C-alpha cells in the first residue's frame, strides 16, 4: 500500500520532499495523501507538529527552570539542552528553506510545463483540424479526378474506336479490295492506333490502381484455356510479322487457380504483346510449370533481350521520375508496372530473365495454386 502511494505520487509528478517535511508539504498543498508517508500519521499528529509543540513547551520550561535552578552543573545541563533545541531548530529551519526553494522551482517548472503542454495541444488541435479539412478536400478532388479520367478516357476512345473500326474494315476489304501498296501503311496506322488505345487503357488502370479503386474478383479459372484463347487471338498478328508462336503443355493437367480473369488476361496479353513487339526473328514460346504450389506461365522470346540494369527497372512505372532517361522502356513502362500490380493482388510474382542483348527474354508469371 505504501509503495503504491509512493508510486502514485511519483506518477502524479509530486515532489519527493513530501517525505521530508509533511507539515510544510501539506501547507503548500503538495501532499496528495492525507497521511504523511514519513511519519505515517495524520497531519495533526505528524512529527513536525509534535516537535513544534514539544519544542515550544520545552523552551518555555527550560527558560523558566533556569531562573529557579541553582548550581553551576544543573544550569549548564539546562543551557546545553536549550542550545541543542535551538541548533536542532536551526537545522530544521534549513531543511524548510530547501523545501521552499525546491517548491518555488518546482512550481515554476510545473507552470512552464503546463503552458507548454497547452500550447502543444492547441497546435495539435489546429493541425488535426487542418488535416481533416485537407482530407475532405482531397476526397472531393479524388472523386473529381476519377470522374474526369473516366470521361477523358471516353472522349479519347471515341475517335480511337472510329479509327480502329474503319481501318480494320478497310483492311478486311469491306470498302473494296485494298491496293497492295496501301496495305502496309494502313496496317501501320492500325498498329499505331492500337498503341494509343493501350496507352489510354493503361492510364485509366494506373489512375485506378493509384486510387485503390481496382476491384479484385477472383474466380476459379483454367489458365491453360485462357492462354490458348489469347494465343489464338494474337496468332494472326504474330504470323503477319513472320514470327512463330508455340505452346508447350505439361504432362499432367493443370489445376484451376483463383484469379481475377480480366486482370490476368491483361497481364498475359501484355507480356506476349511485348514479346512480339521486341522480336524481329524467331518467335515466342509459351509453357507452363508447377513448382511449390505455384503455377508458372513462362513466356520466352527470341527478341532483342535486356541487360541486368534494364531488367531491374522493368516493372517500375515510368511516372516515378525516370521518364526520359530510360529509353528501353518505351511503350512498356506502364504496362509492366500495371502487370506487376495485378500480380501482386494475387500474391503472385512476375519477373524476367535475359542472357543479355540479342539473346531474347523470358518472363515468368507465378500464381499460387492454393
Amino acid at each position: 500500500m505504501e509503495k503504491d502511494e509512493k508510486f502514485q505520487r511519483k506518477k502524479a509528478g509530486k515532489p519527493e520532499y513530501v517525505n521530508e517535511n509533511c507539515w510544510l508539504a501539506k501547507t503548500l498543498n503538495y501532499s496528495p495523501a492525507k497521511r504523511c508517508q514519513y511519519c505515517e500519521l495524520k497531519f495533526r499528529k505528524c512529527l513536525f507538529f509534535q516537535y513544534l509543540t514539544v519544542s515550544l513547551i520545552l523552551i518555555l520550561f527550560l527558560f523558566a527552570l533556569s531562573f529557579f535552578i541553582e548550581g553551576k552543573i544543573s544550569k549548564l545541563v539546562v543551557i546545553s539542552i536549550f542550545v541543542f533545541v535551538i541548533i536542532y531548530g536551526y537545522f530544521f529551519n534549513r531543511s524548510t528553506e530547501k523545501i521552499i526553494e525546491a517548491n518555488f522551482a518546482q512550481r515554476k517548472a510545473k507552470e512552464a510545463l503546463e503552458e507548454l503542454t497547452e500550447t502543444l495541444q492547441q497546435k495539435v488541435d489546429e493541425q488535426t483540424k487542418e488535416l481533416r479539412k485537407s482530407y475532405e478536400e482531397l476526397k472531393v478532388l479524388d472523386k473529381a479526378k476519377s470522374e474526369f479520367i473516366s470521361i477523358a478516357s471516353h472522349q479519347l476512345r471515341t475517335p480511337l474506336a472510329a479509327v480502329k473500326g474503319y481501318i480494320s474494315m478497310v483492311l478486311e476489304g469491306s470498302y473494296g479490295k485494298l491496293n497492295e501498296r496501301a496495305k502496309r501503311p494502313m496496317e501501320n496506322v492500325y498498329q499505331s492506333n492500337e498503341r494509343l488505345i493501350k496507352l489510354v487503357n493503361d492510364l485509366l488502370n494506373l489512375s485506378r490502381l493509384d486510387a485503390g479503386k481496382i476491384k479484385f474478383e477472383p474466380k476459379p479459372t483454367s489458365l491453360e484455356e485462357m492462354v490458348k484463347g489469347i494465343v489464338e487471338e494474337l496468332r494472326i498478328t504474330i504470323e503477319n510479322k513472320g514470327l512463330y508462336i508455340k505452346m508447350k503443355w505439361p504432362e499432367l493437367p493443370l489445376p484451376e487457380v483463383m484469379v481475377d480473369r480480366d486482370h490476368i488476361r491483361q497481364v498475359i496479353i501484355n507480356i506476349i504483346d511485348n514479346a512480339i513487339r521486341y522480336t524481329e526473328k524467331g518467335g515466342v514460346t509459351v509453357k507452363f510449370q508447377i513448382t511449390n504450389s505455384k503455377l508458372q506461365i513462362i513466356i520466352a522470346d527470341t527478341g532483342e533481350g535486356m541487360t541486368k540494369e534494364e531488367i531491374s527497372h522493368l516493372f517500375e512505372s515510368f511516372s516515378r521520375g525516370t521518364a526520359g532517361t530510360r529509353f528501353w522502356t518505351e511503350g512498356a513502362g506502364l504496362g509492366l508496372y500495371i502487370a506487376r500490380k495485378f500480380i501482386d493482388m494475387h500474391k503472385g510474382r512476375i519477373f524476367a530473365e535475359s542472357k543479355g542483348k540479342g539473346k531474347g527474354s523470358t518472363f515468368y508469371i507465378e500464381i499460387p495454386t492454393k
Partner: protein
Amino acid sequence: MKKILIIEDEKILGEMYRDKFTQAGFDVVWVDSAEEGIKAVPKIKPDLILLDILLPRANGIGFMGWLKKEKELSSIPVVAFSNYDEPTTKKEALRLGVKDYLIKTNYTPQEIVDKIKGYLE
C-alpha cells in the same frame, strides 16, 4: 434476317456499325438517343439491341430501366457497348440485365459482329 437496333449517339461510330452489321447480313435500325430507342423498340421489336451507355439526356442505364419494366419487351437481349469504362456504371448495367458490357476500342466491328452472332444463337 435478324433485326438489330443500334443505339449510338456518335454519328461516325453509328454509321460504321450500321455499315458493318448491314454487310454482315443484319437488318439494322440505328437511332441516336435513348428516347428514340424507347420509341423504336415497340415498333420494330428487334432480336437484339446494341446499346451505347453515355447518351445525351436519358442514358443507356435509363433505357435499361425502362426496358426492364416493359413486360413484352424485357426479354429482348441487350449488349452494352461503350467507351465509358466506369466500374459502377458497368455493374449497374449488368445488374439491369445487359448480356455483356463491351469496350468499343477493344473490339473491331467484325469482332463485335461475331460476339452478337454468338448471343443470337
